[in-house]
């Protein structure tokens, strides 16, 4: 029998959208941000414009922070960067177009007159120059002016405001690879007419190999900005440097290629290393108290011209996978074991660790055979197995196989939803490993098996937590809770009273009087659930 509130919730099943929903759908998208970036100027202030009679007053005008309208289609071919100056919507606007890509200019100030009545304003931004995205173009690309306005001055500077070029007319992108600010002063003759200035960001890049190998990110109040739209990998992954880290509790990569997986570094550190594959990513600076889905993000493309990344995903449409055991003792280094286990390599094939670098593995020690830049076989060793065992996936007709040192083991058929190659399921650990971070606790597995004497816990304190707490979730204030204070950066302890079921784990702080702050009632969101299984 459902609770009353559940019955109430189910009343929503009678709620239907209005009859015009289908029509609205068929009308197509409105107000979508221009590709390829979805950065937003969240930080600009509110808008105010005063229409006056004959005189013109300088009033503060506020950017709205709204997503930009789609830019006009580029008028020229890809060899030209088109600066479109338009007043079609009754106010001055500017956009850059290069091929199919575009960027709306960020307008700082303007004066606009219609029938002798003028309005003027200037915008305030929390960041100068007000450049929040970058359009990627080849160096020395000519800039062509189009539209009904004229360029009075066009100034190109580095991102730290060092002037590069200045001209009163058409010019070109700098010849050196790098990111630049393009500032345009434009005028419109006649009535209506007036003047305005705009900012744009461009990254001049002649090839992926010329892209910077460090992603530099600025986290600000309500915005995230990178200093490049294209970044390349290093041997061990994506290097990130962050400024404005104060108040930021994590840096996330979201919306990458394929599934919307996330990679997180951070805890208010000024950078780090991420092991994400090449592709398009959004970088988010997660502020204290911010929800994941509202973090401002900056989009960038991670390229891998040097082949630093070996994909654990097989490149073929059809592959076979089998589990195996081997005659190779677990004391043999996994690199050596992998070499002994894989046979049939052709000339030019390369057996290498999956992911970045030889020591960066995603799930256990994983190796792939690369052929022409594609992964055609994958060997995943079960960490800690003795002798070595694991699974082997291979593209059909690649000629790669397991050596005579391996013995195949039949795998249970997987269901239709498991059509991807995936690592073998991990066994449930019998120790709960908790890492106390500023975001809250992180557990290495969401299931743990009891031992005979209770729940074994190893807690690693990386964020100055004072107490690790484990409690049952649903019984309210009087629920059983086990609290262990940290004396060292690591604590191991056994909770003897727990039976199987769900427990919630938290890392807690004390105030200046030694009293625990927060807690389950006040901050249930800081608790992480873990399923406790019976002892074997």
């Amino acid at each position, binding site marked *: *029998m*459902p*609770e*009353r*509130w*559940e019955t*109430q*919730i*189910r*009343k*929503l*099943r*009678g*709620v239907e*959208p*209005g009859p*015009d*929903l*289908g029509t*609205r*759908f068929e*009308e*197509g*998208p*409105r*107000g*979508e941000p221009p590709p390829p970036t979805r950065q937003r100027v969240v930080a600009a202030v*509110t808008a105010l414009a005063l229409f006056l009679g004959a005189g013109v007053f300088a009033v503060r005008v506020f950017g*709205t922070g709204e*997503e930009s309208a789609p830019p006009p289609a580029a008028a020229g071919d890809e060899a030209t960067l088109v600066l479109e100056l338009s007043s079609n919507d009754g106010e001055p606007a500017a956009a850059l177009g290069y091929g199919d890509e575009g960027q709306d200019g960020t307008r700082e100030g303007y004066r606009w007159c219609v029938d002798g009545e003028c309005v003027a304003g200037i915008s305030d931004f929390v960041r100068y120059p007000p450049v929040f995205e970058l359009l990627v173009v080849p160096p020395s690309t000519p800039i062509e002016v189009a539209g009904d306005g004229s360029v009075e001055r066009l100034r190109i500077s580095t991102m730290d405001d060092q002037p590069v070029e200045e001209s009163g007319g058409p010019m070109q992108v700098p010849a050196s690879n790098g990111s630049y600010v393009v500032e345009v002063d434009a005028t419109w003759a006649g009535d209506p007419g007036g003047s305005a200035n705009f900012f744009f960001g461009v990254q001049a890049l002649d090839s992926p190999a010329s892209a910077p190998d460090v992603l530099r990110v600025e986290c600000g109040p309500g915005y995230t900005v990178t200093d490049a739209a294209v970044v390349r990998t290093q041997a061990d992954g994506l290097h990130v440097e962050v400024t404005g880290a104060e108040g930021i509790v994590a840096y996330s990569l*979201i919306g990458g290629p*394929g599934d*919307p997986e996330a990679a997180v570094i951070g805890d208010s550190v000024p950078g780090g290393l991420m092991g994400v594959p090449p592709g398009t990513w959004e970088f988010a600076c997660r502020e204290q108290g911010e*929800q*994941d*889905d509202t973090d401002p993000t900056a989009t960038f493309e991670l390229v891998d011209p040097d082949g630093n990344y070996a994909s654990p995903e097989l*490149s*073929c449409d*059809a*592959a*076979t*996978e089998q589990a195996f055991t081997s005659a190779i003792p677990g004391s043999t280094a996994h690199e050596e074991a992998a070499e002994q286990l894989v046979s049939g390599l052709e000339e030019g094939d390369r057996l290498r660790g999956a992911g970045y670098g030889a020591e960066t593995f995603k799930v256990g020690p994983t190796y792939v055979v690369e052929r022409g830049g594609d992964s055609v076989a994958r060997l995943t060793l079960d960490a800690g197995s003795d002798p070595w065992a694991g699974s082997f*996936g291979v593209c059909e007709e690649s000629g790669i196989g397991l050596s005579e040192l391996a013995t*195949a083991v*039949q*795998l*249970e058929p*997987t269901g239709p939803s*498991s*059509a*991807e*190659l995936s690592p073998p399921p991990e066994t449930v650990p019998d120790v709960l490993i908790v890492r106390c971070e500023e975001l809250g606790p992180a557990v290495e597995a*969401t299931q743990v098996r009891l031992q005979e004497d209770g729940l074994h816990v190893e807690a690693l304190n990386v964020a100055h937590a004072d107490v690790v707490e484990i409690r049952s*979730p*649903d019984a309210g204030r009087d629920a059983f809770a086990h609290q262990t204070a940290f004396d060292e950066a690591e604590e191991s302890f056994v909770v003897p009273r727990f039976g199987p079921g769900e427990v919630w784990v938290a890392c807690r702080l004390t105030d200046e009087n030694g009293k625990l702050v927060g807690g389950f009632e006040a901050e*249930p*969101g800081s*608790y*992480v*659930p873990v399923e406790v299984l019976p002892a074997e």
Partner: protein
Amino acid sequence: MVVVRRRPAPAEHDYEALFREHAGAVYRTLYAFTAGRRAIAEEATAEAFARAVAHADRVRDPVAWVYRTAFRLAVDELRRERRTPPEAAEEVEPVPAGLGELVGALRELSPNQRAAIVLRYEADLSVDEIARRMGASAATVRVHLHRGRNRLRELLGAEETEESDDA
């Protein structure tokens, strides 16, 4: 030996059929997410489907994509409203008969709690599926469900049963 096949590139989807099948559910979720803002829920639902069509070549999982996009659009609109002077802000629509108590209670929850609760208890989705549609982790969804349930019990009352989130 098991034959497995690599996941294909985004398949072509019949978005009109998807719209017919899922638009109502998306709308109801957004209706709860916005605590009864019918106009915002409708616009976010329609716009999300329209954008999915526009980006069909890179949308692998259109239903989840539409949900996540609709959530984001609704958040943007609610934020925009908060920046709008009160006299210019859109007036709150009347609540349909019979839903007044529920909508009032939903307004006491955070948007993510509302979304998790309605997807779990109105749409009968699993935690993993909710996580996929909200673009959050399953652990985060459990937290939203736990907090939302407790609050709704306080506001609307409870009777007997307790349901697991691990379905």
